[in-house]
């Protein structure tokens, strides 16, 4: 980085007109989407490949990413899902003996446009105060008006249906086919480790595309039903809400995570809403109201379920509460074997505190048999 050949400049423009400057990284180009931030200090590769981040422009709050390179095993899906990346420092030279490559090559191979050397702390504070909004980053356009025009073409996250674009296109199986239990999984953008957490507990999974009719999931004659995490606005997914309603009517043990939680609530008539800036990180405190124990959780969501309607619903019991903002983190349907959580018990990245929920699901299935 001598005076003459410093790296190319890149710009970050927010929907409200705020401009941040930084340096180009990854692929040269322009990319836009809704901005969000993640406060986790480890696990960048797992985060970037998490399908729930589809369409998101992601700020990593931590000072450094890329230090330990990338590893083929540390992925949550087969490609990078974030739309753009905003960082303070992305290290060029990594150090990890078991790494299989550098983050820079990985981002380039996945066509990700990134910007670094941004005052991410000011940016995060801005988002915290003003709320989530669309943004554009570019390492090729330096004219602000052109950027503004490009940014105006990007649809808002609210009302966006993304699951069907990233879900599997055909059903597939996961786990040991001789396992004692069978589970039908509705893939709305499922993280690999969720499937792993279920399979390693003695289940055989059939994973279905997002728009599969409920009857097909039931035709597998599953012992339990699982509705996955995923990106986008749950309110824009009437097809999935209808599927969940039908599945609930079948009275099979039912577990939902994140988007799956929002869809369970929606199927029960609870409205969802767009949060001011969401919860994304590995340190969110949640209290289990049934056991009284607390857990540190991995979170990644920009929508939530309406608290008042949930509290007043005669058939819903609130099981988990966020200790920071008292938002609803888990529910149980009183007259059905169905429960869901807003956070990510499979973690990766993040703490293993909530893995017991998978055990609870298996116990529920066994009890129901």
């Amino acid at each position: 980085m001598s005076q003459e050949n410093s790296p190319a400049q890149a710009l970050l423009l927010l929907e409200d007109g705020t401009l941040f400057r930084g340096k180009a990284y990854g692929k040269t180009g322009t990319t836009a989407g809704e901005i969000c931030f993640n406060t986790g200090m480890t696990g960048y590769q797992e985060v970037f490949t998490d399908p729930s981040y589809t369409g998101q422009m992601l700020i990593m709050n931590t000072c450094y990413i890329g230090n330990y390179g990338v590893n083929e095993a540390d992925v949550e899906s087969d490609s990078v899902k974030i739309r753009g990346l905003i960082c303070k420092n992305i290290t060029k030279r990594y150090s990890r003996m078991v790494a299989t490559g550098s983050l820079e090559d990985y981002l380039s191979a996945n066509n990700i446009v990134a910007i670094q050397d941004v005052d991410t702390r000011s940016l995060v504070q801005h988002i915290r105060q003003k709320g989530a909004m669309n943004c554009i980053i570019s390492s090729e356009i330096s004219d602000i008006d052109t950027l503004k025009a490009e940014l105006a073409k990007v649809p808002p996250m609210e009302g966006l249906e993304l699951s069907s674009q990233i879900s599997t296109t055909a059903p597939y199986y996961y786990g040991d086919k001789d396992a004692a239990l069978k589970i039908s999984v509705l893939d709305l953008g499922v993280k690999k480790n969720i499937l792993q957490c279920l399979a390693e507990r003695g289940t055989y999974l059939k994973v279905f595309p997002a728009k599969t009719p409920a009857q097909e999931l039931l035709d597998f004659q599953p012992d339990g039903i699982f509705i996955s995490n995923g990106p986008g606005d749950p309110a824009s997914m009437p097809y999935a809400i209808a599927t969940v309603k039908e599945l609930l009517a079948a009275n099979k043990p039912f577990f939902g995570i994140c988007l799956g939680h929002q869809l369970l609530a929606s199927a029960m008539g609870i409205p969802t809403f767009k949060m001011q800036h969401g919860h994304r990180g590995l340190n969110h405190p949640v209290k289990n109201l049934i056991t009284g124990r607390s857990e540190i959780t991995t979170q990644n969501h920009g929508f939530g379920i309406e608290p008042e309607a949930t509290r007043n619903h005669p058939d819903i019991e609130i099981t988990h509460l966020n200790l920071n903002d008292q938002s609803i983190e888990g529910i149980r349907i009183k007259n059905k074997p169905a429960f869901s959580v807003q956070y990510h018990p499979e973690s990766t990245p993040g703490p293993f505190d909530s893995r017991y929920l998978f055990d609870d699901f298996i116990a529920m299935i066994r009890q129901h048999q």
Partner: protein
Amino acid sequence: MPLDTSIKSVLIIGSGPIVIGQACEFDYSGSQAARSLREEGIKVTLINSNPATIMTDKLVADNVYLLPLTPESIERILEEVQIDAVLPTMGGQTALNLSKEVEELGIWEKFNVRLIGVDIKAIDKAEDRDLFREWMIEMGIPVAPARVANSLLEGKEIAQEIGIPLVIRPSFTLGGSGGGFVKSKDELEAALNAGLNASPIHEVLVEKAVLGWKEFELELLRDSADNVVIICTVENFDPMGIHTGDSITVAPAMTLSDTAFQLMRNTAIDMMRSLGNFAGGCNVQFALNPETEEIIAIEINPRVSRSSALASKATGYPIAKIAAKLAVGYNLDELQNQITQTTSAYFEPALDYVIVKMPRWNFDKFKGADDTLGLQMKSVGEVMAIGRSFPEALQKACQSLENNATGLTSISRSKMRPEELMEYLKRPTWDRIFRLKEALEAGISIKTLRELTHIDRWFLYQIQDIIKVEQQLKAIGNLNDIQPEFMLECKKMGFSDEQIATVLKDCTPEQVYDYRKANGVTRIYKMVDTCSAEFAAVTPYFYSTFEGKSEKV
């Protein structure tokens, strides 16, 4: 569980005189604990033999006793003041040992005083190397292979079986004295003899040395409902083999994948939950094999330790203050984050900056002392620096050492030839970081330096980046030829004005300052807020850096 209202008056024991390994950290934790308990309406009585402390200020406690730290003093206090409970975890090993002595004499029982925030049995289990090993093996947690020897012959047999390199740790000696490494066969006999002679019971532990493994430290809090959180993860720049107190340390961990980190987190939580019954702070150390990422447990300290103070400052999370509240009955999920005052104290701090702690040695005042760093702590203090990059924090730390270092660059140069430097770097010394920089400048490869020191490549790359900027600065030569963007780059890499002036021709620090002011390359201030700006902070503290804009409370 909420506040235990049967506790109305608490005795806090200080750590006594300042010695190597036990310094003002315990004054910091003791004062925090005293304030924390008084917030709850609890009367605080303090005993310390060291008057040069904040905790003995009349404003900190209700009663202050400047007395020798002896059972007699404790008895006198208990006769004069109604004490319901004693909190012995804030005054380091000194306070714990005194509490144990008083316990054995039956004095606590006589005056109906409860020990809070501690489980004496847990302390014994954690501190006795044999008990610790047995307990780890029982839990299925890997530890370095080791066996106890009571004679030279036995020691040699064990050495044969385990293989070199080895650590020889004499039993029942203070601060690691008499211990040492055996890196080749001909060092074995001398090391065994030294260890056996140093031990009052003629006993040593012959342990496999995991030299070159990376060292990590986790600071945890646990409440009486068994909720556990990791407050801070610290990575040692210096690999295994150098006392943590003598290591340059970094937070958050710089080279740790989530897979490796979660393994440590899970192991630390399992250890803590199986360790007796107490509510408070705890510290766990691990070594990680960089080739396989397997870990072994090194030690656990079930009390507020030297590193808790560092972790508190590094994250903004007041460990001693919260540990004191846990000791009087609260659970973590009932308490508030003291910095945001709106969110929960039950969470794990997220950092958006880099912390570098650097020890400060005073070998020039200890003429004839061996300046090789190893199992025994030799530094007399430490500095902590904060930056938005590792080079910035590292150079700020160098600048704060109060020696002649103006950054990583301009400390007295050794003028050693490359071969001499390579020889020198084999032995860890206080000035290793400066000599590493010289070695890189002399063209010695990262690969060679890694083999010599086992320091992770990532840190060596960072030093190389600092050198690159310095060389560019030198090539430019004159202050007036520097573009403001490059000046900003230098400041982001932690270069001080004095350092820049030294590298340039005919330039003073004042001129660099004036240049910066005229060109808008000025210092701004950012918060340490425990949460990476996710929530608004009410009582944060600030550090300076060079990017964007300053923030206000």
